[in-house]
């Protein structure tokens, strides 16, 4: 969620307040520039992408939900602008696979294929992602409050890095059983909350896991 200060800033910018806009630029340009330049290593090009990010933000302002964290929203726009830039430069990941002779368009993928073969509307996908975000935010907030950083590390390695249980256990010097227990408990809780939001949990492949 945005801080009260950011929400006030957004309200003022919505009224066309140029001083508020100057403040927002001053608050966020440095981290956005560092984020983009890590990928481009070209200061001038990075500044252009950040410039496009700010313009993109103003263009999308009428649709911005200020319950969202402003920083996260700006990073998301910067990522899109960065991808557009890389595409124009021929440096997008698509270029690394486009020359392959293998045609996999008709191949079946693995377990992820079962989750959904339907193309859902963007609105529906946003709703699903919001439900998952809320469930995970509550869970992570609870771990933090209890100082349970071990559990947070386990889940971050499993879900964000995609490491298997055994690698997580070895890295953190705990048993595989403990990792499996943490995973099971987290998935159970998140699945319940997603279902409580009126959505089927099987839209998230990672929530389809065996017991501990």
């Amino acid at each position, binding site marked *: 969620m945005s801080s009260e200060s950011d929400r006030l800033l957004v309200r003022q*910018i*919505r*009224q*066309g307040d*140029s001083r508020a*806009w*100057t403040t927002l*630029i*001053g608050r966020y340009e440095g*981290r*956005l*520039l*560092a*984020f983009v330049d*890590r990928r481009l290593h070209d200061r001038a090009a990075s*500044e252009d992408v*950040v*410039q496009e990010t*700010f*313009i*993109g933000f*103003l*263009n999308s*302002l*009428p*649709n911005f939900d200020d319950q969202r964290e402003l*920083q*996260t929203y700006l*990073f998301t726009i910067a990522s*899109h602008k960065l*991808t557009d830039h*890389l595409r124009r430069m021929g440096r997008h*990941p698509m270029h*690394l*696979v486009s020359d*392959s002779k*293998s045609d*996999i368009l008709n191949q079946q993928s*693995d377990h*992820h294929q079962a*989750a*959904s073969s339907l*193309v859902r509307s*963007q609105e529906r996908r946003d709703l*699903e992602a919001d439900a998952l*975000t809320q469930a*995970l*935010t509550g869970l*992570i907030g609870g771990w933090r409050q209890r100082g349970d*950083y071990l559990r*947070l590390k386990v889940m*971050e*390695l499993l*879900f*964000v*890095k*995609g*490491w298997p249980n055994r*690698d997580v256990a070895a890295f953190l010097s705990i048993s595989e059983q403990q990792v499996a227990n943490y995973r099971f408990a987290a998935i159970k809780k998140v699945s319940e909350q997603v279902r409580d939001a009126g959505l089927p949990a099987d839209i998230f492949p*990672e929530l389809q896991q065996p017991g501990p």
Partner: protein
Amino acid sequence: MAAITREILTHYLDDALSEAETSQVEQALRQSESLRRLLRVVMQERDRGEHSLGAIWRRERLSCPSREQLGSYLLRAVDDDLLDYIEFHLRTIGCPFCQANLADLQTLQQEPAPQTQTRRRKFFESSAGYLHIGREGKSTGR
């Protein structure tokens, strides 16, 4: 080097990997047809609108320390457990958003103020013409 997982490829497509990991992935993709095949599968899943819990976690920065905590981390003014977690999040997870925040905090201590002011003025001058959109309403610019 850790194996390049489906989740890492998803972050790669989102341009949401650290600099080091991006280089590792690009090198591995050039050398491995099976990895390129996996990348295409991930792209197709995304085109179909399938979710990735890891992508949502990273995109929404669900476990990122706050900017204030990163500032305290730089000064080593956080308790041991939090310091250990922040190092894990920066180095092992390789969160590019927190790395950017940290780099910015470090730059703030070093960059000459006039240089920063010039850049900020440039951003303002190139975008201020769009300020009216917030009042009048317009479709997404993303």
